[in-house]
Every structure is written in structure tokens, then in C-alpha cells.
């Protein structure tokens, strides 16, 4: 509304200016960190010749696939006002499960399907506890973080399950035409996530619950069911992330994925999703994922030493968000 205002004010002054300004507004309005991402991209392209190559961009995307898939699921959960701290452990469990099944001789498609079902069931369990028992998601998923990790370790006795199957490796390492399979999977998940969230009733219920749970209930939305479904859906998607990761590493390790929940949450929040729920977009999340991945890639390309990477990462993330917050404030004061 305000944007319209300001552009209509411009309109009367200078007609050429508007379209340009308008376009910029549209781009910069998508996520919360668009300016930051754009600047990061430009700076990286300038300071290292290795960054802006097709090869490297494909490389970055492929690396970000696991994080991206996780972050899509996390976006749904956070928009309901929830959180999933067990995402990393879910990756471990599903990686171990799919590897264990394949090693045990289960055909690959079936192993994958079963793993996704297991992931869905884990999510279903968490969602049920959260929505029916009224326990904060933070606590439920924190408890599940250690429980699931424990299960993965007990199941494998701490030793990764190696999958030498070449077909399975294709998921994380192979190509479909010129595009890595992992990227294709990531894109499909992101598109499904976007459609579901922004263009179906289910998605709109997700927002409504996160925004005003009471209003949702009074409008006849089955709040418990929707919440439970979000975690179950999330669990299935986390399982897909776990499968891609296991394939990339050719093994199911109970250590895999540990701690990645924080990256996923960070990507979602960087992308402008409100940690208190009700607000957020898949497109924003993609940008958050891009920032984190490009940053990691760039620092490696630039051969920055490991301790300095820590500091630089923090500063860049802070600056990226800060740039957008300036914009937001300038907008508000128009």
C-alpha cells in the first residue's frame, strides 16, 4: 500500500524514474535480504574470477541442495510458529535408514519410499505431541534431536553404513542432462513447497495458524490437523534431504547432518520469515540458502584462513540483513 503511495507520488514528478524505481522495489521486496544477496554476488564476482563460472555456480547449487530441501520444510514449520531442532538428526536417521535398507538388499526405489515414510512418521509423531499435548515445539524437537540421534547411533553402533551401489550414488552425484540430479530434486521440492504454501488452502491455513491461531480455529480450520500435517510433511521432506546427503556421501552416517538444523533455521530467517510465525515465503528461503552457500563457497575460493572465516561469515550475514533493514525503515518513513 505504502509502496503504491510512494510510487504514485513519484509519478507526478518524473515519469521515467518510476519504472526503474518500481522494478527495483519489486526485486528488493521479495525476500528480506535481496540487497545483501545481490551485493554478495557482485562482490564475489569481482574479487575472484573463480566465482562467476557456470561450473562453480552449478557446484554451489549442488552443495546447497541438502540445506535447501531442509529449509523448505523448515519454512512451513516456522510459519506455523513452530520450530524443528531435530532436523539434523532426522537427516542422520533417514541417511542411516536408506543405507541400511539398501545394504540389506531392499531395491533402491522401495528403500527410498520406505525412508520417506519413516521420516513422515517421525514428523507425524512430533506434530501430534506438539498439537495435542500443548508442549512447545522447541522442547519436543529438542528432545527428539537427542532421541533420533541416539537411535541412529545405536542402529549403526557408530559406524557409517557404506553404500557402494552406483545407482544410489547418482541421486547426489549424478546428472540429468547437464543438470545435477540433486539440483533437480531441490528445484522440485522448492516448487512443490511454493505451490503448497502460497496457492493452496492448506498453505493459507499454515499462515493463518501462525498469525492468529484463535482466528484460525474460529473459522473452522482444524488447527491440530494442519499443524500435525505440517510436521509430517516436514519429516518426509527432511527424509528426502537425508537421502540426497547419504547419496552424496555414499554412506549413511549417524553423524551426518548434525547441527545443520541451525543453518536451515538461519536460512529461513535470513529469507525474511518471521520466527514467531505467520509471515514468510519459499522464495525468501531460497535467498537465505543462497547467501549461506555463496558465503561458504566464496570464502573457500578466496582461501581465507579458517579462523578468519568465522568472523567474516558473521559480519557478512549481519551486513546483509542490516542493508535490508535500512531499506525497510526508509520505506516505513516514506
Amino acid at each position, binding site marked *: *500500500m*505504502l509502496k503504491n*503511495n510512494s510510487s504514485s507520488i513519484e509519478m507526478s514528478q518524473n515519469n521515467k524514474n518510476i519504472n526503474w524505481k518500481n522494478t527495483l522495489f519489486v526485486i528488493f521486496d521479495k525476500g528480506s535480504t535481496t540487497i545483501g544477496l545481490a551485493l554478495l554476488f557482485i562482490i564475489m564476482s569481482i574479487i575472484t574470477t573463480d566465482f562467476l563460472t557456470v561450473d562453480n555456480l552449478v557446484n554451489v547449487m549442488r552443495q546447497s541442495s541438502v540445506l535447501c530441501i531442509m529449509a523448505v520444510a523448515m519454512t512451513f514449520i516456522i510459519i506455523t510458529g513452530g520450530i524443528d531442532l531435530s532436523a539434523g538428526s532426522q537427516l542422520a536417521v533417514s541417511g542411516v535408514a536408506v543405507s541400511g535398507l539398501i545394504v540389506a538388499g531392499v531395491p533402491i526405489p522401495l528403500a527410498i519410499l520406505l525412508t520417506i515414510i519413516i521420516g513422515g512418521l517421525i514428523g507425524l509423531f512430533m506434530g501430534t505431541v506438539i498439537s495435542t499435548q500443548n508442549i512447545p515445539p522447541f522442547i519436543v524437537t529438542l528432545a527428539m534431536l537427542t532421541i533420533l540421534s541416539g537411535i541412529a547411533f545405536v542402529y549403526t553402533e557408530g559406524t557409517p553404513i557404506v553404500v557402494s551401489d552406483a545407482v544410489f550414488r547418482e541421486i547426489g552425484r549424478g546428472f540429468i542432462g547437464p543438470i545435477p540430479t540433486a539440483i533437480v530434486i531441490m528445484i522440485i521440492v522448492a516448487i512443490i513447497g511454493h*505451490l503448497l504454501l*502460497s*496457492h*493452496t*488452502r492448506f498453505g*493459507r*491455513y499454515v*499462515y*493463518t495458524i501462525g*498469525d*492468529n491461531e*484463535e*482466528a*484460525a*480455529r*474460529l*473459522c*473452522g*480450520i*482444524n488447527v491440530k490437523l494442519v499443524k500435525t500435517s505440517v510436521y509430517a510433511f516436514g519429516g518426509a521432506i527432511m527424509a528426502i534431504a537425508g537421502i540426497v546427503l547419504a547419496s552424496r556421501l555414499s554412506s549413511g552416517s549417524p553423524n551426518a547432518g548434525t547441527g545443520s538444523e541451525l543453518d536451515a533455521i538461519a536460512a529461513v530467517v535470513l529469507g525474511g520469515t*518471521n520466527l514467531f510465525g*505467520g*509471515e514468510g515465503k519459499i522464495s525468501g528461503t531460497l535467498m537465505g540458502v543462497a547467501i549461506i552457500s555463496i558465503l561458504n563457497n566464496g570464502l573457500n575460493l578466496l582461501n581465507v584462513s579458517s579462523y578468519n572465516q568465522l568472523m567474516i561469515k558473521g559480519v557478512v550475514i549481519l551486513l546483509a540483513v542490516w542493508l535490508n533493514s535500512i531499506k525497510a525503515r526508509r520505506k516505513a*518513513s516514506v
Partner: protein
Amino acid sequence: MNSPIIELKHITKSFSGVKALTDVSLTVHPGSVHALVGENGAGKSTLMKILTGAYSKSSGEIFYKGEKVENMDPKTSKKLGIHCIYQELNVANYLTVAENVFLGSQPVNKLGLIDWKQMNQTAKEIFASLQINLDPKQMAKDISIAQKQMIEIARAISQDAKILIMDEPTSSLSERETEILLSLVTELKNKGVSILYISHRMDEIFKVCDTVTVLRDGKYIKSLPMSEVKDVDSLVELMVNRKMESYFNKIEVPIGETILDVQNLSKTGVLNNINFNLRSGEILGIAGLVGSGRTEIAQALFGMLKKDAGEILIDNKKVEIKGPSDAIKLGIGFVTENRKETGLVLKQTVRDNISLPNLRKYTTNLFINKKAEKKESEDYKKKLNIKTRSIEQTISTLSGGNQQKAIISRWMIQEPRILILDEPCRGVDVGAKAEIFAQISKLAEQGVGIIMISSEIAEIVGMSDRTIVMREGTLAGELEKDMITSDNILKLAFGGGISA
């Protein structure tokens, strides 16, 4: 006579062991407008929430067209065609206006995807039929409370309800919107819809209702056809169980020096060159339609809205008000129009809410003197008759009107020099209104200058010493005491001239 569509029988509801409703029964016939009246906290909203299944009843029975409904929940009631405009608005701030209209039943296309085009189009049509100017694509967080109220009304219409419950639908609307709403009620009734209508504005009850049921202290008192109700006074008497002497306890006091002077106040697109002043002991009314900029004047005075031009003088001295804390230091108090979003601290107790801006007063050494704090809260609980078991109760469990009284006490304790009241009696019952007006009068007597924004013209007429009327961000006119009439206010608000 046709058979009842809804029967509530022997409904009892207790919260944490305390009864909010005791053995209440109610029968609603198709195509009628049934009023539900009673004091704040009488149990009207609770009874309606039981009917929609938002609350589960402790005991009693619900019948729909003669058939017993066992487990009523919001989904079931929606299926039965029961729709409710709740007292506390249920708007999702980060969804669009159109989505809020269709909340929970957004139209979808063949693929199961949301049909945005149709949704926006339909919303637009509904808004047009309600003569309101709202952009369906706007985010709900950017609109005013009156507009949110209109969204709820639009939602109700879009539902094709058979039974429509309206819990104080006009509490934040002004004359024009109220008129539209009331004609809508009649129209729906003629189409055979049954309407349950809750309001503290008695004139509305007399205008549109066929039957009235009175609740008092959670108990059923009486149901009778409106034709058998003699006048407002007799209905009020049933509600409050005593004779009301007067509604507007205005005390005439000598009016003092000018304490506030507003000059050329402007804000692009909202306020245009506003000039007025306020004297000590004076009650200045601000009238106007929704969206005319009344709230914005208050916000500018309180440092919530950055003005583009103009000056504010207090005691003839220019002041710079950059934020609410500056305003408070200058002795200004402000009761906002939207208690839920800008007033209440919902997780805290009644006492916390009353003492919030006054804590400095109770602080001795480092710590808050809880005894002093409690005592003053207790005093105001009594003074304004706030219905709560204890001041230590969480404020969210109070009825709407009682919450409003707590917020008002907050600012009375502050002893401001200038008190701004934006819709101070929103949702307050007639008895309590009289109490609040008595208190406001007393403040004026002590020399406080009062600015009272109200959409209820009767309140403006009954209470103000002088009135300014706003229209589309400009000051349409100023009325001295003997010129303050309903007619004159309306003429100015709609853009006509007045005859002196």
C-alpha cells in the same frame, strides 16, 4: 409461529470453577433479529461462543432445528450455517484483506489452487455492496480497526449464514457504517436469516430487533418481544436491576486557560492544516466518519505519528513531542481505540495492566511497593466497577468492557493534564458508561483538559463542551456548546454546511 431454528437449554459454563453462565436458555426463530443485552461480563459473548462451539459448555443442551447437537465445535457450527462476528476481531494480520474475508474457505480452482482472481473480485463486490472502500490486495495489518470490523462483516456475508451472530459489530463504527450495517441486518432478516445481535447501543436494539433477551450476572432474566419493551430506560433497568438516573453525568465546571494549542497540523494524505485548542476543565469532542483522521490527530499529539508541518503548544510554549514518553512527560494521557493491540498486556494481571504507566509512583528505593500498587488498583476496580474475581486475575479472562475499564483506570491514575480518549466506551455497557463519564467529568472538574473522540454522536452531544468535526483529514467545522447537535455534526461530517 414457525418452529425455532436454535434452542439453547439450561446452559452452564464455568471457568476454573467460577460460573460465567448459570442455567441459561434461549430460543431463536428463523428470520428474526434477536437481541442479547446485559452488562459487561453478563455472559453474552460466552453464551454465543458456546453456540458456535468456540467454548465447550459445562452442561446444558444445544438444539438445531429440533435436533440435539452433541459436540459443537467451530467446524460443526460452520457446517450448520452458524456464523459469528466475534467481539474481539479475528483477523490474520499478514494475510491480505481478501483472504481475511474468505478465511478458512478461500475459493480454489479445478487444480485445487487458490483462485486469487475470483477471490479478489468477489471481495471487491462485497465491499461495494457495503459501500466501503478497501483494497482487497492490501495486507490486513495496514488497515484501521474499523476497517477490520468491516472485514468481519464482509466475511459473514460471504458465508451465506443461516444464523448470524453479531457480537458488538458497531462498537468501532461510526454513524454512516452503522447505518449501512443496520440496513444490512434488515435485508438479511427479510431473506430468512436469523440474527443474534449484541450491542450496548440501545438505539440500535430498538431500530432492528424483534425480540430481546436480558442476561444479568450469567443468569437468564427475561425474553420478550421488542414491542413489549416500553423504552430504553425500562430495558436498562432490566439489565442493571436498578433505575438509572442519568447516562451522561456531565458536571458543568468553569473552563480555564488554554492549555493546548494545535496550529496548522499537517501530515501528507492524512491530516490537512488542523487548528484547534483545548482549555483546562474543558471536554473537547472530536467527531467524524471512520477514516476522517480523528485518530491521527490523537496520534500526532501523543508522538506516534510524525507530523509534516504544524506546531503544538502547551501552556503557550512550543513543544517537540517525539514519542509517547515525551507526551507523557508533558502530562498527556492516551486511551487508544484498539485495546487489544495497543493497550492490553494480555499475559499479565489486571493489576499489572492498571499500574503499568504509573510504576514510578510506587517505586520506593529500588523496588516496587506492591502494597501501594495493589491498593490503588483495588480502588479503581471499585470506582469503575471492574468485574473480576481478583485484580490478580489475568486480564485476558475479563470481558471486553471490563478490560476497557482497566485501561481507562491506567490513565486516570496518571493524573494527566490532558487526557485523550479514543472511543473510550467501546464495548462498555450503559451502566458502566455512566460511571466512566462521571469519572471523566470529575477529571474535568479538577482542571484536566479532555479530548474525546467518539463515533457515538450521543456521547459527543452529551459530554462535550465544544466539538470539532473532521472530514477527510480536514477540520470541517467547530461547534460551540449550544450548537452541538446530532444534525449539525452529521452535516459537517458528510460535507454539508450548517445553518447557525
